[in-house]
């Protein structure tokens, strides 16, 4: 049942959609690169897991989703999913700095950025925490009959967690409008996916639970977009869940501070030869749909946005004692 997607031409996306996709990927990249630098200064508290390198996955999938009826769950490596699902970038940055202007008022931090109004159910500090939740949002959409889908992102490491595996089965049995996106970046912390994922490809697990499984090249926005489009379409039409395995590479360590002694040249190679942003640019300028100038302009705008986001975050107020015990409950 497992099928491999390869790159296609711009797959019928109009200029506006292409520009939007590029802007999203560029925003994620710059957001993460900047965090990498800022983290090194010691000013950012806590654990930060960067999504740089994996942009085509979140963007390719979420470019098929609506703000309101569609929802996603994410992981500890959640910034890319948040941005792709439309969470405000400045609020995200402020959250990572722990400020009251942050998405979560400074109470969540990098690992818990959420925006339920955008159908973004939160980054998640628990590996395997998201897939069960997505069974619920997909169920809600199904019961409501609004054609909505739920998408669970998880890693190769997360594909071994019982909660994830159970969710595949539940989604299949309930015939839910759900899409499971396994982002296989080759490692869970320092542990190789080639070792930890019994059975080889994660996509192979789809058949075990009665759903289609596909593998896509995570450097190729178009391949991801297309695979997700088919899965989302199937889900919206009552055809049930799909498991998509996206193969990709993370450009930084597991978290900021990781010395990455467990891998060597693959990142440099990926950055050089496979990078999703470079490839996207080659494709759309090569086909003549967009010009380098258009893309350069996006780059400039995004750079400005990120600068502002960091500046504003640093200037934003910290929470105060009064915030400590609010919002534990809705009613007390």
């Amino acid at each position, binding site marked *: 049942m497992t099928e491999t997607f390869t790159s296609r031409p711009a797959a019928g996306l109009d200029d506006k959609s292409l520009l939007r996709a590029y802007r999203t990927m560029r925003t994620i990249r710059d957001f993460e690169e900047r965090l990498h630098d800022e983290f090194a200064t010691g000013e950012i508290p806590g654990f930060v897991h960067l999504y740089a390198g994996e942009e085509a996955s979140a963007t390719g999938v979420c470019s098929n989703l609506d703000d309101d009826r569609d929802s996603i769950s994410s992981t500890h490596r959640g910034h890319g999913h948040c941005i792709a699902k439309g969470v405000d970038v400045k609020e995200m940055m402020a959250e990572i700095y722990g400020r009251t202007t942050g998405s979560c008022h400074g109470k969540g931090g990098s690992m818990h950025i959420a925006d339920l109004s955008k159908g973004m159910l939160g980054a998640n500090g628990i590996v395997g925490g998201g897939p069960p939740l997505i069974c619920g*949002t997909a*169920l809600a959409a199904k*019961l409501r009959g609004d054609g909505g889908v739920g998408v669970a992102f998880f890693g190769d490491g997360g594909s071994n967690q*019982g909660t994830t595996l159970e969710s595949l*089965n*539940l989604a299949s*049995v309930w015939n839910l409008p759900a899409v499971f996106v396994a982002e296989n970046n080759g490692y869970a912390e320092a542990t190789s996916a080639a070792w930890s994922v019994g059975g080889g490809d994660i996509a192979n697990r789809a058949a075990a639970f009665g759903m289609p499984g596909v593998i896509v090249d995570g450097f190729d926005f178009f391949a991801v977009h297309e695979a997700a489009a088919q899965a989302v379409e199937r889900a919206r039409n009552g055809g049930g869940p799909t498991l998509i395995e996206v193969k990709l590479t993370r450009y930084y360590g597991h978290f900021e501070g990781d010395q990455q002694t467990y891998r060597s040249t693959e990142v440099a190679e990926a950055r050089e030869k496979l990078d999703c942003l470079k490839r996207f640019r080659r494709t759309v300028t090569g086909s003549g749909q967009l010009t380098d100038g258009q893309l350069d302009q996006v780059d400039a705008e995004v750079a400005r946005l990120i600068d502002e986001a960091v500046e504003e975050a640093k200037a934003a107020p910290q929470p105060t004692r009064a915030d400590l015990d609010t919002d534990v409950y*809705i009613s007390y």
Partner: protein
Amino acid sequence: MARTISYREALNEALMQEMERDASVIVMGEDNAGGAGAPGEPDAWGGVLGVTKGLYGKFPGRVLDTPISESAFVGAAVGAATRGFRPVAELMFIDFMGVCFDQIFNQAAKFRYMFGGKAVTPVVIRAMYGAGLRAAAQHSQALYPLFTNIPGLKVVIPSSPYEAKGLMIQSIRDDDPVIFCEHKAMYDTTGEVPAESYTIPFGEANVVREGDDVTIVAFGRMVSVAAQAADELAKSGVGCEVIDPRTTSPLDADTIIESVANTGRLVVVDESTPRCSMASDVSSLVAKEAFGSLRAPIEMVTAPHTPVPFSPVLEDLYVPDAQRVVNAVKTVTGWER
């Protein structure tokens, strides 16, 4: 109009009435309809001990059987709650929390705080607790202290059919995640229950009976045990005030403290094991907030620090009974500084 019905029927009626009233209420769990995919009738079971019986017949699309995968379906209930539904998920035995606790305590319980006040997660998790059915160590625990420890959860323990119905309706309407603990040995207990819908607010203790000599705080099935002890003690002129907090989180501290201010003595009766329990929780509250009123040590009547034994003989010794409560009351009333 009040009729005499069972604890089970009271719960069933609460679910039925809320499903009728509010289309966003959905119910899910293993065999909650019963027999999904089986050739027999679709409502073959209606829950392992019959609490959800008949719901599927009335609301077929809104009562969902599940595979045995508590993390997935409890998580699904949580997820659906964030999207406008009011799911009531059945964990069956509270002892099964160990395979799905993450979705409860790291997800549902923390969303609102972690997301800066922006989440609304009105999920109810029903679970059977308690000993008495000879169901042994993995099917008899009284684990509500574990949930009470977790900020973000509300924990409800109804002590009678009347309480069961009103508290269930409140649980469903409440916007926070609720752990609803049903004592499995009480399903056939009967009592007066209004036919119409009503709610019992959280965090407001019920003073089951008044008395001036000793305050007894008891939870769930222990409320009737405490009341029985109080009856017994009344014969020898000892007046017990029996308090049923109804919810362990939030806890009605004021009612307890006021009562102890009057009686000067406290006995806490808790079916759970003693360490970090509700018995210790209420004791510590009073030792801090009502110390000046206390005229005797605080006695705790709990299960022993052991798993629940299978043997009926041992299980009967395991569960606190009226005699042990009587003894505890005698200890505190007989105490001289």
